């Protein structure tokens, strides 16, 4: 195809262009023509189409996400908020921490290993871009039924891909989730979180300012990978036979990324960049337009200078390529020599591809001809915005009205059988088959990882300052009530930080939903965002960033609304943290918080194929009192473990198995409800008997109820008269996943 230039575009206004094939709607194409006052050149069309895709432009979600700003609680800790590659939080002692979660759902369905691997690679670059050293990753995952053939295909590949990439980067994996549900069949969710740390004065932003400064592309060469991949793929509905479009898959090169990280950190340490942006979805289109748009607007790029892996690529393809492991920096001319030197030391490919200019246009040339001449803000930040129709779906009232009909164990034999059944179900079973494929020790700062409630990383060896992170979502509650579901996930993540003794500080989120063109899905989304924004305001936790993944559906069946909420907290001395389990016999176990009949949306209900009833209503004031109690009482807790999926039964089983120390429990409430209900806002703690009074005082000060459950010790989990030997419990808990996937 002959080169289409701006000059040609001006003289051939009526030439037909394949905008629809590139995912643009007629009115969007018309708007581009209005912005430019002519038809776009083919390169401009390529840029607009990827940048205005759902994935890059947030066109369906923007109007809702605004609430995170509008309802933002005041927070002294927030150093960089939404809008940059990742938010940055002050954790004290001059340290800043940045964290963000992102989805790579669709690519991971197409090619599980590479899809998941490049998902990790992408989020790590977002964190690096902020100026931070990445220090850990997490991976909340969702799959179809554990025994479905497609799950057997995708799960091992996804797990190996996350491990393969993260391990090779030397990033400890400190947590995640693995949940099975039929709605994810054919549409697994691969969300990846990365956290990084830097000093306050090292924060970097994505902006190109200062005319005459150089635009520098460094890292991998550009190839034909995933042209239109992430953006188009993540913006397409899957047909029942697989993805509608099958773009070439991106292959990750973690070694190149590891070297890129070290090289970038050395460049940052010498203060050699004015602005920096990673190349992710939409590749150079995104990086150049966002950098220019973040600065004063003027930039000139000579596309011929981009180093290519495949010399036959056209300029449109170069602009859209999503080749991994690339970064784009803005560098003052006086600093370029040193910049190039550091790249040489690390053997990193580097090229000056352009410069910042005085004007307000992004101009890209190819063999001397101008192929792009656009106002960069219109590409990067002023894309289309949709107020999509939304309507409460018909199912909501219907399922909310359903009355659950569940077996309620009462005899000792029934209780024992129920606990063993629950603890061996794929969702509740031990996940070490997965997590043992992840390096958790590298960097030597991991304080907590799976199966603890949260991951915890030491960030200063001398002061013992640390951060903790948890990610949570209860998609069934979100299905029953998306507004409450979002708040409940937020509360759970915050609680999971606090059980360890860390103070919640900030929130990130990954909103995984079906098609935004379905008003019912859009309603779920809107309710979720409203719930999360209200919840964050009430709890005083700012949303620092996140990601939206739409079109997660197979045919017309959408996944459960799955808002994965990540909460980051700070702990002053990691040596003082509270672990999830006890090593000693003779401790007293208490339940903090009330248990109501909350079986709707529970694991027990799911195991009996029931997804009806009403989700619990989040009581965030109670959650905050519980968090305060946990933080204040930290010194008396020998162990603290959150109650969530699987209720008290699962929490107790996990605690006794962790160090092989049993417990004897006496329950006075109706035993099925006591064990299986999933009422939020509850924690089991272990204390020395001599601290009973201190706990009672804490409880009354914070207006939280506590109930003594029993004592630790022995080689069984005994609940009233049901005796479950630890060996039996362990076999039930640990055999499920290896049997399915080993």
């Amino acid at each position, binding site marked *: 195809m002959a080169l289409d230039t701006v000059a040609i575009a001006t003289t051939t206004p009526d030439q037909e262009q394949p905008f629809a094939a590139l995912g643009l709607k007629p009115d969007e194409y018309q708007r581009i023509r209005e912005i430019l006052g002519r038809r776009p050149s083919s390169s401009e069309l390529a840029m607009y189409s990827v940048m205005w895709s759902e994935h890059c432009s947030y066109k369906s979600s923007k109007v809702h996400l605004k609430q995170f700003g509008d309802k933002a609680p005041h927070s002294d800790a927030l150093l960089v908020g939404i809008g940059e590659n990742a938010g940055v939080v002050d954790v004290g002692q001059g340290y800043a921490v940045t964290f963000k979660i992102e989805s790579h759902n669709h690519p991971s369905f197409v090619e599980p290993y590479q899809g998941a691997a490049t998902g990790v690679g992408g989020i790590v670059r977002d964190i690096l871009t902020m100026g931070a050293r990445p220090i850990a990753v997490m991976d909340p995952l969702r799959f179809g039924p554990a025994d479905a053939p497609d799950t057997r295909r995708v799960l091992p590949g996804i797990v190996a891909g996350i491990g393969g990439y993260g391990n*090779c980067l030397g990033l400890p994996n400190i947590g995640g989730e693995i949940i099975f549900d039929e709605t994810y069949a054919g549409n697994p969710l691969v969300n990846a979180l990365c956290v990084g740390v830097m000093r306050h004065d090292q924060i970097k932003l994505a902006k190109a300012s200062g005319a005459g400064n150089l635009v520098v592309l460094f890292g991998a060469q550009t190839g034909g990978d995933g042209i239109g991949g992430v953006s188009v793929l993540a913006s397409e509905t899957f047909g029942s036979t697989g993805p509608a479009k099958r773009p070439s898959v991106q292959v990750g090169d973690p*070694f190149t990324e590891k070297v890129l990280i070290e090289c970038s950190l050395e460049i940052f340490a010498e203060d050699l960049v004015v602005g920096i942006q990673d190349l992710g979805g939409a590749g150079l289109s995104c990086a150049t337009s966002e950098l220019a748009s973040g600065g004063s607007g003027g930039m000139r790029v000579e596309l011929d200078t981009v180093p290519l892996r495949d010399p036959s690529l056209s300029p449109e393809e170069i602009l859209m390529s999503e080749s991994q492991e690339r970064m784009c920096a803005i560098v003052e001319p006086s600093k370029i020599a040193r910049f190039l030197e550091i790249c040489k030391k690390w053997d990193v490919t580097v090229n000056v591809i352009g410069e910042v200019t005085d004007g307000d246009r992004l101009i890209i040339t190819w063999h001397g001809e101008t192929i792009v001449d656009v106002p960069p803000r219109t590409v990067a930040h002023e894309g289309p915005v949709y107020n999509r129709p939304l309507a409460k779906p018909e199912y909501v009232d219907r399922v909310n009205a359903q009355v659950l009909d569940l077996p309620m164990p009462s005899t000792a034999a029934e209780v024992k059988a129920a606990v063993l059944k629950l603890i061996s179900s794929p969702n509740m079973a031990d996940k070490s088959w997965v997590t043992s494929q992840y390096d958790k*020790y590298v960097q030597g700062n*991991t304080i907590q990882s799976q199966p603890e409630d949260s991951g915890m990383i030491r960030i200063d060896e001398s002061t013992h300052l640390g951060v903790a992170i948890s990610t949570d979502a209860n998609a069934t509650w979100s299905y029953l009530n998306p507004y409450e579901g979002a708040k409940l996930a937020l509360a759970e993540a915050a609680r999971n930080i606090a059980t360890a003794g860390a103070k919640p500080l900030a929130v990130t989120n990954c909103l995984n939903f079906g098609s935004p063109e379905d008003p019912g899905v859009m309603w779920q989304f809107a309710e979720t965002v409203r719930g999360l924004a209200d919840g964050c305001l009430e709890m005083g936790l700012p949303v620092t960033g996140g990601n939206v993944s739409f079109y997660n559906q197979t045919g017309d069946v959408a996944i459960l609304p799955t808002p994965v909420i990540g909460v980051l907290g700070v702990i002053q001395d990691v040596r003082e943290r509270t672990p999830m389990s006890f090593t000693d016999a003779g401790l007293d176990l208490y339940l903090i918080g009330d248990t109501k009949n909350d079986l709707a949306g529970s694991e027990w209900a799911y195991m009996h194929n029931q997804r009806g009833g009403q989700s619990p209503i989040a009581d965030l004031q109670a959650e905050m009192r519980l968090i305060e109690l946990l933080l204040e009482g930290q010194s008396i807790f020998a162990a603290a473990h959150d109650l969530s999926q699987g209720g008290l039964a699962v929490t107790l089983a996990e605690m006794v198995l962790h160090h092989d120390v049993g417990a004897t429990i006496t329950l006075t409430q109706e035993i099925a409800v006591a064990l299986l209900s999933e009422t939020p806002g509850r924690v089991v703690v272990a204390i020395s008997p001599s601290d009973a009074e201190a706990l009672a005082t804490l409880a009354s000060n914070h207006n939280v109820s506590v109930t003594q459950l029993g004592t630790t010790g022995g080689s069984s989990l005994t609940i009233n008269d049901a005796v479950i030997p630890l060996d039996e419990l362990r076999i039930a808990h640990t055999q499920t996943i290896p049997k399915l996937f080993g």
Partner: protein
Amino acid sequence: MKVGVVTFPGSLDDRDAARAIRAGGSEAIALWHDDADLHGVDAVILPGGFSYGDYLRCGAISRFAPVMGSIIEKANAGMPVLGICNGFQILCESHLLPGALTQNQGLHFLCTPQTIKIENTSTPWTHDFIQGAEIVIPLKNGEGSFQCDDPTLAMLESEGRVIARYVGENPNGSRNLIAGITNARGNVVGLMPHPEHAIDPLTGPTADGLPFFSSILSVMVGK
């Protein structure tokens, strides 16, 4: 005592190894793969990681780094060298140690606290252990299965050159449960599991790995 830690492109556990050296009472000196100068160190540790991505075979490319030329020369003259995980792989590829490390029998990367038994305390890296001690340190690798031919295996066993052995189920298919070996002279040691991640129970499973880093001081200064 100055102990050098080599950083190759893709090394991951170099900082952790340096921390462990300091915890063991010595000074850690950073060495760079592209610099043949050993900066006067008394001993060298080749740390874990994925040098050059471990794309071809683990350690196959690193073996040719300029720094390795100097290390091979000094090792042959008796300088203590410890290769951990990827470092062990590099030592085998360099032929400082016999055998090779191949893909785990389970085909997966495996990260787990692993019990090993120390069987040779005469090397400068294992001197501070009690013969037969069972310790728990992390094992984490994808290619940790020690393989060699029968005569080599017989030689290693008869000369007491197996310095550590896995206890319990074979985690990766290594012949004779071998977790670590030494050269004929006893100064070069390769170890698959990671003692540098077991110097403090706060961040590792135990502090059992510390003697690997204190031994060098006892041997070279203490005696």
